[in-house]
């Protein structure tokens, strides 16, 4: 039997690091479909899962890939799929099924230029709002954004843990550059924390599949064959899991699915602040755009401009409190992202005019030129003075 | 289903049971019973359907076709082992 955790220092790209993160986290089922720029995840995990007693299956499309992951999860497996824009769009309905049935699993999106076939081999970050609103109806998601292969490994492990803790599909929203760039990846088993699948503490008959615990998350998830005769349905359902088609059950069901994320937001949200203590302008960004923003930050600091960066590691749920607080003490925010302005809308919504919010858009196919970010910073400073 | 009244008829080899209020009047059992044991009752049930009624219990051979084809779990049979059959009798 092979080792799940490849302890040591490696030179990997972000895709491979995601695959290693999944295997380290205990993933025992991967169901996916080839798509650039994600394929290296599937390729690597197809090598690794058989070594650790897991199963890799290449399904017939992305719809069935996520459906098989959800089925695997209810079979007791830690399950994952990975895709890119077009596949991500196909997965939307079953993402909703995973959210409604509170099924723990991981969905990695190595974003590429869109819309449509777009730029299969080139970078984009244009699926961020789709991650939040792509499926139909009201729900809440957790989306993590790695900025390096090292973080691709770590956040994939975290995604599996968050999925088990909050009982939902967790999204890892990476992008083509992070996915294809090679960097050093240190894997230290002592630093890896694994959250195992929680089984029900109550026996069948007393146990209610969707009775929420104090943190609004159902306590314990029986697997297929455990004797709990579960009923899992995408229909609005009560605490037993039985479909109940009325507004009262809908309210109870849907509000809890939202609140179990937003009432626990402080435990979920993670950001990284760089030089924000004295910053007049703060760059709010995520993923690969944080790497280019660091270049802009350094150039600005060299010019004596007090600039900091707030890197969103969890983009969803959006770190509202942190951004709102920071808005009270800065002249403005610049928001570089490789789309025509998506997360900037969240910054704007939260800041509500307390300070300047300046989008630094990019249509896709390349990362920002740091000087463009610098110009935006200088613009904001000029405007603010 | 459990608290509803169940009618039980003695047959040559055991019993035939009907929970009239479960029936939705599809008549599958009546039409296709190989021994013509059943007929439509003249009283309708709680749902307003006419359930089957046993007109010839002796003819029933507990072949279980009615319970398999019944869409509403309203009719079923129980075959007793040969020894116990002799003790039972019929009120008919």
């Amino acid at each position: 039997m092979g080792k799940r955790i490849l302890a040591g220092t490696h030179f990997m790209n972000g895709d491979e690091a995601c695959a290693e993160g999944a295997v380290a986290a205990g993933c025992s089922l991967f169901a996916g479909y080839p798509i650039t720029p994600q394929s290296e995840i599937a390729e690597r995990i197809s090598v690794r899962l058989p070594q650790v007693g897991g199963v890799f299956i290449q399904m017939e499309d992305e719809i069935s890939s996520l459906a098989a992951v959800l089925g695997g999860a209810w079979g007791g497996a830690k399950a994952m799929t990975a895709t890119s824009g077009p596949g991500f769009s196909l997965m939307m309905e079953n993402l909703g099924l995973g959210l409604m049935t509170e099924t723990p699993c991981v969905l990695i999106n190595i974003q590429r230029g869109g819309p449509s076939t777009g730029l299969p081999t080139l970078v984009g970050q244009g699926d961020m709002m789709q991650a939040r609103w792509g499926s139909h109806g009201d729900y809440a998601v957790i989306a993590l954004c790695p900025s390096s292969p090292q973080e691709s490994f770590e956040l994939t492990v975290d995604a599996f843990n968050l999925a088990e803790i909050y009982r939902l599909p967790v999204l890892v929203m990476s992008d083509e550059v992070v996915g294809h760039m090679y960097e050093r990846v240190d894997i230290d088993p002592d630093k890896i924390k694994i959250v195992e699948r929680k089984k029900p503490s109550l026996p069948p008959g007393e146990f209610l599949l969707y009775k929420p615990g104090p943190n609004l998350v159902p306590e314990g998830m029986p697997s297929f064959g455990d004797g709990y005769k579960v009923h899992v349905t995408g229909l609005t359902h009560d605490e037993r899991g039985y479909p109940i088609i009325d507004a009262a059950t809908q309210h109870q069901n849907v509000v809890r699915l939202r609140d179990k994320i937003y009432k626990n937001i402080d435990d979920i949200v993670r950001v990284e602040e760089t030089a924000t203590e004295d910053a007049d302008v703060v760059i709010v960004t995520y993923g690969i755009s944080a790497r280019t923003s660091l270049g802009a930050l350094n150039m600005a600091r060299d010019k004596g401009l007090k600039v900091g960066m707030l890197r969103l590691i969890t983009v969803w749920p959006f770190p509202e409190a942190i951004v709102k607080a920071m808005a009270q003490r800065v002249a403005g925010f610049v928001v570089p992202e490789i789309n025509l302005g998506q997360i900037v809308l969240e910054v704007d919504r939260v800041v509500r005019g307390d300070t300047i919010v300046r989008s630094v858009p990019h249509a896709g196919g390349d990362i920002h030129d740091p000087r463009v970010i610098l110009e935006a910073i200088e613009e904001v400073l000029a405007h603010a003075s | 289903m459990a608290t509803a009244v169940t009618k039980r008829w003695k047959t040559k080899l055991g019993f035939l049971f009907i929970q009239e209020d479960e029936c939705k009047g599809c008549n599958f059992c009546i039409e296709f019973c190989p021994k013509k044991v059943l007929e439509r009752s003249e009283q309708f049930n709680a749902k307003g359907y006419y359930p089957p009624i046993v007109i010839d219990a002796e003819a029933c051979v507990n072949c279980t076709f009615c319970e398999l084809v019944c869409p509403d779990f309203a009719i079923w049979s129980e075959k007793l082992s040969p020894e116990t059959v002799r003790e039972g009798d019929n009120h008919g």
Partner: protein
Amino acid sequence: MPAKSRALPTPDLLTDVRHPMEKYLRMDRLPHIWCSGCGLGTALSCFTYALDELGLTDADLGVVSGIGCTGRAAGYLNLDSYHTTHGRAIAFATGLALARPEKKVVVISGDGDLFAIGGNHFIHAARRNINMTVLCVNNFNYGMTGGQFGPTTPIGQKGTTAPYGNFENPFNLPYLAASSGAVYVARWTSLDARRVKEAMMEAIQRPGFSFVEIISPCPTNYGRRNRIGDGLDELRYYQENTVIRHGSDPKHADLGPGKEITVGCFVDEPRPTYLELYNELVVKKNQF
């Protein structure tokens, strides 16, 4: 002779007597929603008797359903049951089967769910010989959504979206299942209840991808719009037009106006399952 005037046998009147298949049913969710005369209750009943005769419980087997009238079947069964998205039951079941290879996964769904939106998953799961049994109740239309025609609606027959009669060539399900690689393929009508139960038993016992089609009346939509009459009339039609041809070439089991309904077991040939091949050619071969 009218029933009333003959000496009718007098039944005992009992209370708290339970139907023998109650152990397989979520009693708190019955009676079910299916119309009077629909064949779905028959299919559900046959399934419970099949499990009973095989002595199977929720420790051995679970059910996955899609969306549609048949899709509600999972919700009535007192087993691990999963009611998934339209067309994706087989894909969900694939994951379930791979995660718990020692259990049997049964997909119970309808003609629209399995062969229109779900067709791609059906042919691939069969090709891969994933260990699951697919029970398709084929009532030739989308009943739940009001009677639209579907991928199996015979030519000339009406649906709410085929007001002038369907002109699309329908699937021949046994032929499709056989050609996709299913190791067991059978078709019966819901009138052949005993054989439906037996085919279900056989299908469940076969390792790999097994398929049973149960032709069933849909009086409220398909039957009414095509002047077939009620469920009973449709069963009478089956009785008069059904021909049993075990082992015959499923290519000739197509349905259509004026054609016989060919039923029987068309395919029963074992083949290594997906996981058997995976363990043999991937895991063992590389000594993992």
